[in-house]
């Protein structure tokens, strides 16, 4: 992000800056001096960029470990490659509180509707990283049991590897952070002209003798992203 900052004049040392700040806080600085102080002390930027910068630096990933990649995801929280350096150590279990879904591991056909439902429950702005070969493209196993994550939910960053090293995952997360901070619109939102996905409340799939769903489908199997519907 672009930060406009004035270089410090050579005659200003730390003590003088301190005194100037103190004067400003007391209200003793006036006009030209005050302007000069503001230019030196405060960063100017647009609100969008500031918000994007803050957003990118405070992502709450969601704990979504499925298989082997989950162990490497736990490694990035561990001490050697510490993701707390970037501010992302607050892993949240609830989708309502998280904004990054790191899909780590193989997605089976039984699990896909569950993941989709959880993704839908996340609030905008939300992002998804597909970690590892298995969720990006079924990896080693291209068979009846697995489904690539692109088929049922929109993904922002794919991280290759089987499993990706913690450094590789960190690279992927930082790439996502760059994308957020630069308001990079390239991706599924641009291609589909979408503003997000819709949470589908399951219709009627009650336990026991509840009313059955009208069209015979259990609510959580219906998943759609309102691309054109929302935009049009």
């Amino acid at each position, binding site marked *: 992000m672009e930060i406009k900052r004035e270089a410090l004049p050579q005659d200003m040392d730390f003590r003088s800056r301190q005194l100037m700040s103190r004067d400003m806080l007391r209200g003793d600085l006036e006009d030209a001096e005050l302007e000069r102080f503001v230019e030196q002390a405060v960063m100017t930027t647009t609100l969008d960029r500031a918000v994007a910068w803050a957003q990118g630096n405070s992502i709450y990933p969601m704990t979504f470990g499925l298989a082997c990649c989950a162990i490497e995801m736990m490694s990035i929280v561990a001490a050697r490659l510490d993701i707390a350096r970037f501010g992302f150590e607050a892993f949240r279990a609830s989708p309502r509180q998280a904004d990054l879904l790191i899909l780590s591991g193989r997605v089976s056909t039984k699990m896909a509707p569950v993941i989709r439902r959880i993704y839908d429950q996340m609030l905008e702005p939300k992002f998804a990283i597909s970690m590892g070969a298995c969720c990006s493209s079924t990896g080693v196993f291209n068979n*009846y049991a697995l489904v690539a994550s692109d088929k049922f939910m929109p993904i922002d960053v794919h991280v290759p590897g089987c499993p990706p090293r913690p450094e590789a995952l960190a690279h992927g997360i930082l790439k996502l952070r760059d994308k957020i901070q630069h308001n990079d619109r390239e991706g599924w939102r641009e291609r589909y002209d979408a503003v997000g996905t819709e949470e589908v409340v399951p219709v009627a799939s009650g336990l026991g003798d509840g009313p059955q769903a009208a069209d015979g489908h259990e609510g959580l199997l219906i998943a759609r992203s309102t691309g054109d519907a929302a935009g049009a």
Partner: protein
Amino acid sequence: MPDAAGLEVIADELRAADPTSVLGTTFDRGRAEIQIDPSKNIEVIERLRKRGFNFLASLHGVDYYPQEPRLGVVYELLDMTEVDRISLKARVSIDDPKIASVTSIWPGSDFPERECFDMFGVVFEGHPDLRRILMPEDFEGFPQRRDFPVGGEPILFTYNETEQYGKDR
């Protein structure tokens, strides 16, 4: 493992009790196997349990396509005091894949039998809750059978995602 002679002793004891239960024995590369009549599996297992093989190490299914009878259920039994292993194989045909469940003997064969049913279609009679365990409940077909296709789908990339799913659908 019981050696070849020991295996014959066990098989003879089983035949002495019930001549039709044992269909054959095989001793190959250290593995002792007795082929049994599927309708008599519980009796044979009980006799072997009295002999000391009272731990079920594994229960799994095999598809012997194209040989008939196609589906086999293999019980790997273990004798913990003698450290002996013996396998029992019961082959059922694909048109009538029924065999008695051993959950009354070992409650821990609950999941393996459900998996065998899910993957091969072998129906275990007497199982308290026989339904699919690994595949989704409404899945049709038995994946592990040799004539079930492996499946798999072409992978979506940006260049082919419109052909596969298309925003212009």
